[in-house]
């Protein structure tokens, strides 16, 4: 049954909306980012590259949270596993430089997917959903952070590991800012478009149906825990991909790449863009990153307070996310205007 779900092309499902507004926005953003290096170079470009990788990380969370309605508070675990996988493979083992980046990336992504499968099996098949899932994944980040700090011989402990080589494959090196920027952009673009494509198909519909009434979906013959588990694992693997590329791009890993604050921040990136839209995760990351630059330049320690306040506002003022909040207001304004006439 799962194979037919994935094989069903979106074209069969929604023939009328082959190119929805979300995909047009996504393609527009990717095209705009393609020409960005014509205007920005050097160090600034590398920080834009990091934003792209964070956007990929946010996308991975939205793939699970936005589509299943279950919030993972532990996604930094997977980002961190990707980063540490890359760092540990390239620093502790003497692997042929031609393939070391690939091996590191595969190790990190594989570890993340494996952890997601194991933990996800215990909680999803245990019938744990909603708030419990959130809190168990939160604990997962704490556990992972404990291990990262408390196992210095492997992870470098508090100070992390320095000296991760730039991403390279079979002699192709992505060391300079421009090529590493394009690497990040291509990976992000590919993941974004393919996620949107898969989710506009039957799998996306079934995941929405599970949010409505999981029991009913089960009576229709779907193995709902399996579908949720696979989505979770795919999401974790994508987060690790972002983490691995981030470690290679910056040359180091540190415990704050596998910490609760990062798990928290990624939720905000997704929420600002509007969860469930996928492309919104990318936009949200860019907006929040820009805000963070502004606020941190005034007072660095104010940032966690801003995040905390945002969480409270998110629930009390705009539960559907700021994007939907603004859209609703605009719609209402327009309606009021029409009523006036």
């Amino acid at each position: 049954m799962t194979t037919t779900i994935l094989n069903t092309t979106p074209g069969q499902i929604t023939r009328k909306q082959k190119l929805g507004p979300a995909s047009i926005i996504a393609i527009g953003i990717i095209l705009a980012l393609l020409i960005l290096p014509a205007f920005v170079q050097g160090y600034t470009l590398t920080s834009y590259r990091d934003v792209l990788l964070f956007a990929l990380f946010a996308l991975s969370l939205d793939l699970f949270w936005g589509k299943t309605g279950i919030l993972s508070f532990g996604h930094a675990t997977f980002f961190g596993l990707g980063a540490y996988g890359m760092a540990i493979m390239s620093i502790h083992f003497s692997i042929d430089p031609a393939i070391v980046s690939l091996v590191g990336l595969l190790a990190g992504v594989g570890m993340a997917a494996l952890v997601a499968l194991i933990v996800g099996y215990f909680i999803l098949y245990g019938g744990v959903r909603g708030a419990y899932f959130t809190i168990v994944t939160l604990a997962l980040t704490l556990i992972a952070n404990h291990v990262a700090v408390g196992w210095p011989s492997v992870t470098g402990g508090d100070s992390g590991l320095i000296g991760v080589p730039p991403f390279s494959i079979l002699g192709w090196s992505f060391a300079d800012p421009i090529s590493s920027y394009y690497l990040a952009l291509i990976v992000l673009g590919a993941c974004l478009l393919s996620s949107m494509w898969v989710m506009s198909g039957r799998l996306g519909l079934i995941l929405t149906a599970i949010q409505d009434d999981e029991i009913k979906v089960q009576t229709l013959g779907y193995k709902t825990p399996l579908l949720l588990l696979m989505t979770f694992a795919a999401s974790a693997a994508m987060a690790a991909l972002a983490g691995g590329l981030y470690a290679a791009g910056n040359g180091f890993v540190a415990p704050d790449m596998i910490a609760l604050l990062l798990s928290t921040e990624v939720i905000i990136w997704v929420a600002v863009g509007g969860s469930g839209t996928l492309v919104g995760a990318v936009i949200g990351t860019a907006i929040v990153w820009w805000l963070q630059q502004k606020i941190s330049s005034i007072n660095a320690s104010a940032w966690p307070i801003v995040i905390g306040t945002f969480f409270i506002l998110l629930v009390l003022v705009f539960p559907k996310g700021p994007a939907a909040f603004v859209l609703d207001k605009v719609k209402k304004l327009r309606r009021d205007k029409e009523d006036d006439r």
Partner: protein
Amino acid sequence: MEALIPFSLNALTLISILLMVSMGMAIIFGLMNVINLAHGEFITIGAFTLVVVQGLGGNFWLALIAAPIVGYIIGLALEKALIARIYENPLHAILVTWGLSLILQQVIQLIFGASPQSITGPFPGSIDILGVAYPAYRLFLIAFALATFAATILVFKKTKFGLDLRASIQSSEMASVMGVNPDKINARAFASGAALAALAGVLLAPLTAVTAYMGINYLARSFFVVLVGGAGSISGVAAGSGLIGSLETALSYEIPTTVAQALVLALAIVILRFRPQGILPA
């Protein structure tokens, strides 16, 4: 045999700590189904009450009285202002209490600074137990935690407040039919949970580094104590603390403490799979 005494005392110390930090969470979680992610910060608030009291020339005992009062007042204020609006949606509760937690951490750090605070515990020496010298303060901690636990059970079983509370945990609709005002009972229960956490903070302070982030270390553990024990049941908290505390102590003899903690949390996830209701459900 000689080695068994310090081991059991170490395990008892940890169990007592877990008992103290988890009781408040169990009440709030069991009653309102709210996972209070700011629970750790109430522990921190308790510890910093000790810092302030000692800074003003007061002693440990004064702080032990002051902290639960401070915790109760802050808890009551936050419940009225924020928590009362989010009971229906557990995810909202998580986001709001987490936001609260981040703000409280940062505010405490802005006021007191990032470096660990120095405080003095009440009993510096050690006591001989069957030929083994053991820190006196830890023995006091064990006795105090057991006393608090007993007192909480008494409040639960014998007082009007406890009866209303238990009725509400069983079924809030039934309780409100019986004339229990749910808003009042929720506010008082949340504040009491916060007070218990603050009390735990004072007791913990002499054993750990007192910083704005100290609470977070206890958040996940108290959550798992409650889940493994069974939400909403005070005896479940004892069972959960006993299991997690003794396991963690036993494991830390062989492997680094942080890794032992990680392993125990992982084990708790496995237990959830097979006993989703906890060991001793309400």
